[in-house]
């Protein structure tokens, strides 16, 4: 990314504190450990490595280190699209936990993003859930509203609410009660291949400024080079789809409800507004009119786009900073001329801010995960070992581990993580990290509603598929989706 582009972005990022206020609750404005109003790559660099933390000592105050107990724990773990680096940190975390708490018998189970919700719901129906669970940000409200989760706030494990992103705390709050603690929070960025841009006659150092530009650039890349321009993802039941389409929807001024507003009420359905339809039209134009995106977008997820990008067959995509490391991992596995081709792509990989809508609005999903404790009646055996659960939660949400477990792909849920020496090390070793942290102020959380998983994983992808396959017109698809949301919110069958 060019410095001038980044500079401009930083300026706009600072100005966008108004939008950031949407992520802040009143207590968060009290005394957060970092100054969110100054958020910029420079500020993040200035605070990195300024404070030391002793995780074992801190967590020892919550649950004594010699505590004897047993804990069952499910978590959204690493999957095929994650870099090897993250795998190592997950391994290190559980080894460290066992060393720190040698008398806690830990039975952990990793599940992928797309499997976790279904399996967790099924386990709950049979009162066979684990004692603690780490869920995607989308899931917490559903289970809190149904009464499965115990109240749990950062103060319960030795931290303060102000230590976490205010927007993230919204996602763990239902009916005024906090039911979990954020482990990590992230915003994605826009990635492009400078070499592809150059060969297609585009400025290799200038990413598309608006979503309309994305449509134009995608067509130009496809028409000139015969490869896919933009890595559209429209698979159903895959988290990747809303994470890529919602920023587009919000940038055009649309939304499912008013979730992009400073104080959302989730009362009015906006999915069939003119702005939402314009966003859907942009996807339609790329997929149907210009045929400039992968045809397989309807069955693909982001993990399928990564090899395409590495093979030089894809010009642009939205993803995590970790994709750079994923590319390095994939390149190591390539052989012969493929290895050189992959290296060319890596050398030409650029990160920028996600484009804006026609009115200059920039948005990205405020993603991440949260950790929760279950009520005993829903747990196998009917008992929850709370001290053991709090021990692992304290450790995972500590400045040290909330950073390490998000090393390549996300950001620490605990804001103190930005002050650690590992953050400094990370900024030096993870390329383009500053771009994705620059996107944090533009982050919009998914609606904090129990219906959100169905809306984001089924209704929104269905709307896209209906429009992109020609099963419905853009207008019909948007109206149909809005009706489904209305029925869902009304408790319809």
């Amino acid at each position, binding site marked *: 990314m060019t410095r001038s582009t980044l500079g401009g972005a930083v300026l706009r990022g600072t100005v966008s504190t108004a939008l950031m206020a949407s992520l802040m609750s009143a207590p968060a404005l009290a005394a957060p450990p970092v100054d969110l109003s100054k958020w910029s790559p420079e500020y993040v660099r200035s605070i990195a490595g300024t404070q030391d933390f002793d995780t074992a000592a801190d967590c020892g105050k919550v649950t004594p280190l010699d505590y004897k107990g047993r804990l069952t724990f499910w978590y959204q773990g690493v999957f095929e699209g994650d870099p090897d680096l993250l795998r190592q940190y997950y391994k290190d975390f559980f080894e460290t936990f066992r060393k720190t708490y040698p008398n806690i018998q830990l039975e952990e189970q990793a599940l992928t993003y797309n499997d976790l919700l*279904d399996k967790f*719901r*099924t386990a709950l*129906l049979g009162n066979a859930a684990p004692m603690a669970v780490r869920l995607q940000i989308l899931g917490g409200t*559903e289970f809190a*509203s*149904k*009464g*499965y989760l115990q109240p749990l706030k950062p103060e319960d494990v030795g931290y303060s609410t102000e230590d976490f992103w205010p927007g993230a705390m919204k996602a763990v709050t239902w009916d005024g009660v906090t039911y979990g603690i954020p482990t990590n929070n992230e915003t994605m960025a826009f990635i492009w291949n400078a070499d592809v841009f150059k060969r297609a006659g585009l400025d290799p150092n200038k990413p598309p400024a608006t979503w309309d530009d994305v449509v134009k650039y995608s067509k130009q890349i496809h028409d000139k080079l015969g490869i*896919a321009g933009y890595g559209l993802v*429209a*698979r*159903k*039941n895959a988290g990747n789809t809303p994470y890529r389409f919602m920023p587009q929807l919000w940038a055009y001024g649309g939304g499912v409800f008013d979730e992009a507003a400073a104080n959302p009420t989730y009362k009015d359905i906006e999915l069939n507004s003119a702005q939402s339809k314009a966003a859907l039209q942009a996807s339609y134009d790329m997929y149907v009119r210009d045929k400039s995106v*992968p*045809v*397989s*977008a*309807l*069955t693909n997820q982001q993990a399928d786009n990564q090899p*395409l990008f590495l093979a030089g*067959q894809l010009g642009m995509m939205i993803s995590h900073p970790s994709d750079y490391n994923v590319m390095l991992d994939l390149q190591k596995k390539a052989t012969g001329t493929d290895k050189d081709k992959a290296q060319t792509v890596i050398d030409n990989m650029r990160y920028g801010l996600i484009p804006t809508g026609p009115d200059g609005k920039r948005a990205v999903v405020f993603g991440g995960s949260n950790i929760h404790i279950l009520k005993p009646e829903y747990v196998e055996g009917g008992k929850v070992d709370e001290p053991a659960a709090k021990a692992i939660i304290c450790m995972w949400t500590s400045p040290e581990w909330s950073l390490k477990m998000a090393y390549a792909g996300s950001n620490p849920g605990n804001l103190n993580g930005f002050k650690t020496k590992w953050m400094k090390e990370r900024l030096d070793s993870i390329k383009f990290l500053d771009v994705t942290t620059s996107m944090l102020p533009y982050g919009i959380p998914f609606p904090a509603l*129990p*219906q959100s*998983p*169905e809306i984001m*994983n*089924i209704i929104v*992808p*269905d709307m896209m*598929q*209906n429009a*992109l*396959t*020609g*099963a*419905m017109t853009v207008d019909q698809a948007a109206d149909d989706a809005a009706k489904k949301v209305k029925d*869902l919110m009304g*408790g319809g*069958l």
Partner: protein
Amino acid sequence: MTIVTGNEARRRAQPAGSSVPRKIWEHRADYAYVLPAIAVMLIVIAYPIYYTIELSFFNTPPGLQLRDKIFVGFNNYTAILTSDVFWQVTFNTLIWTIGSTLISFVLGFAAALALHRDFIGRGILRAILIIPWVISAVAASYIWKWIYHSDFGIIGAVLVELGLTSRPPNFIDNVSTVLPSLIVVNIWREFPFAMIMMMAGLQTVPEQLLRAAKVDGANAWQRFWHVTFPHLRNVSTVTILLLAVANFNSFIIPWIMTGGGPSNASHIWITHIYELAFGRQRWGVASAYSVLLFLILMTLGYFYVRALSGNERKEGNA
């Protein structure tokens, strides 16, 4: 002294009264043997069936726990039968089941007839043809997904390379082609089963009848139609019914390859039920669907049992 034999002893031990209790008493050991299996079936089959029927009369909104379900009478059934998706999914299910079953059967039968003859390499060919059936359906689905890949699938690449098309054909990202494409995969996996069944059936065709027909001047088709095929009628019925039940219940291939998409074009009943229940938590509606599916499968099961009983009767008469 009178010697009482085992049978006489059993007869004397029988309680007096109607013949039914006496018969039960007579077979008490048989009942004891099957009792554990019946107990297991009651737990893992009967109770879930009862619970599914019960749930089908309740609404289960995503914001409520299952225990807080709301009684809605037959509303779930009404909602299903009046929804467009139901008819789309039912149409897909019929195409999927009939297409997969009939084509698998025909191909399997043809392969069985070919392999029934004695030729060099028959054993190897038979082993090769069985491979699709023994491969894990999950692995096969992922492999086929890549074979069909709309941008980089091998079929598309070959067609483009041969100059037959400028762009790879769109197999599974198109509402018109997705279901036929999945049926092809299903047939590839299932026809070996039909082949094995029909090969077993062919062993039962009396060789002397075929020779006699040949002596009487019957040509190959006449021998097949008038001698071989009538002997295979029952095994064919059983094979078709088993394939139909398996296809009606088929989940892995459509779910892994497309998840029912795009735009519900490859959703069949079972994948739709799964999505309703586990993706959307509409346990009530999903249960109503399941009850309807259960009734259909029970009907097929009835014909299957009848076909089997017919076989047994014929064998008994013979």
